[in-house]
């Protein structure tokens, strides 16, 4: 079954097999006679980056005589007479997966850097403008939170290129399941500062009607599934959606964003494995920003980051410089094309640095040095792209100043406007639990309203009593 849906078999081929009236038998035959690359019947891409000698899996694991093999359900594996463990502390020098890069840290094109999907000049300008506006919004909204205007905020400083760059590499209707720090995807797709501000204030214009904490954005129009706080739960969702899109022959893919901390959750492994086995066209975009709140990535995993886990699971994977917007755009477009063409998932690990605190509830100077922060903050991804644009004559200081000034005015105005919008009425807190409120929720709504009318001082400010 898995092979029928897997990357090496098109849906049309599966249909043909069924038309032959022997789907079960055919599937069984295929299951036990895999063709092509995967020695154990599972791999879709040879792990070239980890292979020490040749492209044959046998050499990697020290098997001198590749002709000597052993049959297992689903294929054959090589036999070796050497007793050797693969990986672990005894192999400290095992090769690291390289990081794809197009622009050097000063924004200059690296000679020979592959660009299968180079962004055009106007696209590069749009990319920079979105990153700059994102930075301005983050700064203003962060300050607003510090002033006590709303309860919580998260910035994405240091990860702008990974977030906006990947958004620019997607189709606008690709279904995005984000973690929580990817509001740049929404900005790229057309979410306005007003939309962001309404959500942070939890007012009645916000679709979620103030039920969730700030930064839990969502938009059906922009194919951005509403954020939930638990980590990695969104990953299998993206796989299920990708599978549904493939079933209905949609040209779109599912997209799951997550951090390297979330990669430790069971849902992450389940999602990657499901996507590979079921042939779901799903992009897994990991922002490896070095920290899960205070826990550094070297205390999160012992292996070579996140991307290295893809190939053994049958997921084509790439590591990309998350500070290089041009590399991220190219990698995302290539990954998307691969996912659609092969009907398979693709994993992208964008290497970033979380330049800001985890959230407004965090003070990261308690667990990392100011020197480290200053050094990484200097590698501003927006500045890197701007240097590239400046050199190409696509941008200049005057335009930059004007863009940021206008963005500041808009962000402040959006916050002021959102602050004046009333909250949703008290009764709305009892809606949307189910499609139709059952009797017990209607009873509780009526009781809450009666109590609130008798004790108006307990009603949160700005909440209409109806």
């Amino acid at each position, binding site marked *: 079954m898995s092979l029928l849906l897997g990357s090496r078999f098109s849906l049309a081929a599966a249909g043909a097999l069924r038309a032959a009236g022997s*789907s079960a038998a055919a599937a069984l035959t295929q299951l036990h006679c895999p063709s092509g690359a995967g020695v154990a019947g599972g791999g879709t891409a040879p792990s070239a980056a980890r292979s020490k000698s040749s492209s044959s899996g046998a050499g990697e694991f020290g098997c001198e005589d590749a002709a000597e093999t052993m049959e297992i359900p689903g294929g054959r594996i090589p036999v070796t007479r050497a007793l050797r463990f693969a990986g672990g502390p005894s192999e400290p020098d095992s090769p690291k997966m390289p990081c794809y890069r197009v622009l050097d840290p000063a924004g200059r094109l690296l000679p020979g850097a592959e660009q299968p999907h180079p962004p055009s000049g106007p696209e590069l300008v749009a990319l920079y403008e979105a990153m700059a506006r994102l930075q301005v919004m983050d700064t203003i909204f962060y300050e607003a939170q510090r002033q006590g205007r709303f309860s919580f905020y998260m910035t994405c400083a240091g990860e702008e290129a990974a977030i906006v760059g990947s958004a620019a590499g997607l189709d606008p209707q690709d279904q995005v399941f984000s973690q929580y720090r990817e509001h740049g995807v929404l900005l790229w797709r057309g979410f306005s500062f007003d939309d962001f501000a309404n959500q942070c204030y939890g007012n009645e214009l916000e679709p979620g009607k103030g039920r969730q904490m700030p930064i839990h954005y969502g938009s059906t129009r922009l194919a951005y599934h509403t954020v939930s706080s638990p980590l990695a739960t969104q990953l299998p*969702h993206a796989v299920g959606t990708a599978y549904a899109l493939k079933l209905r022959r949609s040209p779109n893919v599912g997209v799951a964003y997550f951090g390297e901390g979330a990669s430790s959750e069971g*849902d992450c492994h389940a999602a990657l494995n499901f996507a590979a086995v079921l042939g779901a066209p799903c992009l897994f975009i990991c922002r490896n920003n070095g920290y899960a709140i205070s826990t550094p990535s070297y205390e999160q995993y012992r292996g070579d980051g996140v991307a290295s886990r893809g190939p053994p699971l049958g997921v084509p994977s790439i590591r990309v410089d998350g500070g290089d917007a041009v590399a991220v755009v190219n990698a995302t477009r290539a990954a998307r094309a691969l996912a659609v063409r092969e009907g398979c998932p693709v994993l992208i690990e964008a290497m970033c640095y979380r330049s800001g605190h985890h959230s407004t509830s965090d003070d990261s100077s308690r667990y990392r040095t100011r020197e480290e922060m200053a050094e990484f903050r200097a590698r501003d991804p927006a500045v890197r792209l701007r240097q590239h644009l400046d050199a190409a004559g696509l941008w200049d200081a005057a335009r930059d100043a004007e863009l940021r000034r206008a963005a500041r005015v808009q962000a402040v105005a959006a916050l002021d406007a959102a602050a004046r919008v009333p909250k949703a009425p008290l009764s709305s807190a009892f809606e949307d639990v189910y499609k139709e409120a059952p009797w017990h929720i209607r009873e509780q709504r009526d009781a809450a309203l009666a109590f609130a009318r008798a004790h108006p001082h307990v009603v949160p400010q700005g909440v209409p009593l109806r």
Partner: protein
Amino acid sequence: MLPFAALASLRGIAARGGLRAASAASALGAPAASAWAAPRRAVGTSAPAAAAASAPEHQQSAEEPRLPQRGEARKLNLCSAVNEALHVALEADDSACVFGEDVAFGGVFRATVGLQERFGAERVFNTPLSEQGIVGFGIGLAAAGGTAIAEIQFADYIFPAFDQLVNEAAKMRYRSGGLFSCSGLTVRAPCGAVGHGGHYHSQSPESYFAAVPGLKVVMPSSPAEAKGLLLACIREPDPCVFFEPKMLYRTAVEDVPAGDYTIPLGVARTLSEGSDVTLVGWGAQVLVLAQAAKAAAALPRPISCEVIDLRTLMPWDAKAVAASVSKTGRLIVSHEAPLTGHFGAEITARIAERCFARLEAPPLRICGADTPFPLVYEPLYLPGVERVLEAIKASAEY
């Protein structure tokens, strides 16, 4: 007391089966002879007599389901009724998928037999062995507008998916203000005791899920009920967890209407009317209550019991239970799950509030013990007919 004896002997049959997977399936492979006179008659009272010849409807507003005519029905066990419901659901809805561990070859209980052959490997397929993956995948499929029918092989193994159900499926509509939902998600899970399951093949975890706002929780008590309720869950515009009492997979056999029909969620059914004590249960326990009611009626000083099958735990039909207790003045709730903090507590508390002035005796809960499910002590752990009968007498004599 034929039904009681028959139940005991059926439990004996089940006990000879293997623990899990294919051995359990083959041991229970042949449908058992019907030993289920009382519930079968009760099902008849609840619907087909009033059956309209009209086309099946997906959503019915009537209190009682309108099932197709009796002539179209055929005898099925509960497992086959579930299988038929899945066939109907996949036939009616191109976006519907059935998936889970081992479902492709028909499932370890054979509930998905024939589906892959009929509907193809794109729509009926095995998944890797990960409950959180299965439910998370189903949520995503449903969020994209698909109909996701996920199987968790045993309810005992649903807990890795607890986070996905509690934090994701249940809250998706609420947290997005209705922008997104996974209304097309139904999670099926075989549950309950079968005589030899021990800790991890016996549990009845329904109350954990009934306590989660946003989920609907259903447990059928007979084959015809199972088919209609499962189809209702699949079409319900909210995520549903559908617990299938695996004791009944082979032992419960009755006429199941052919074709497409649903039984509305949130509406209890009264199996038998009575005037002295109200007995409330769901799933396989309904059979025990029906037998206890018969035994109570046969006592030297007969006690008349009203038996209510709750069918849906969330939202549950408090109106029906309160109406009955207002008449009888006495309430006994019985379930296989442990006593403390499970759904019997909710029912007795709510009814105590609503019917306080009408109560003639304290509401009682006759349930499993507050221990893990103990293998060799199962006959005593389970709230069997004699324990329920003792409670009926105690309530009546209070």
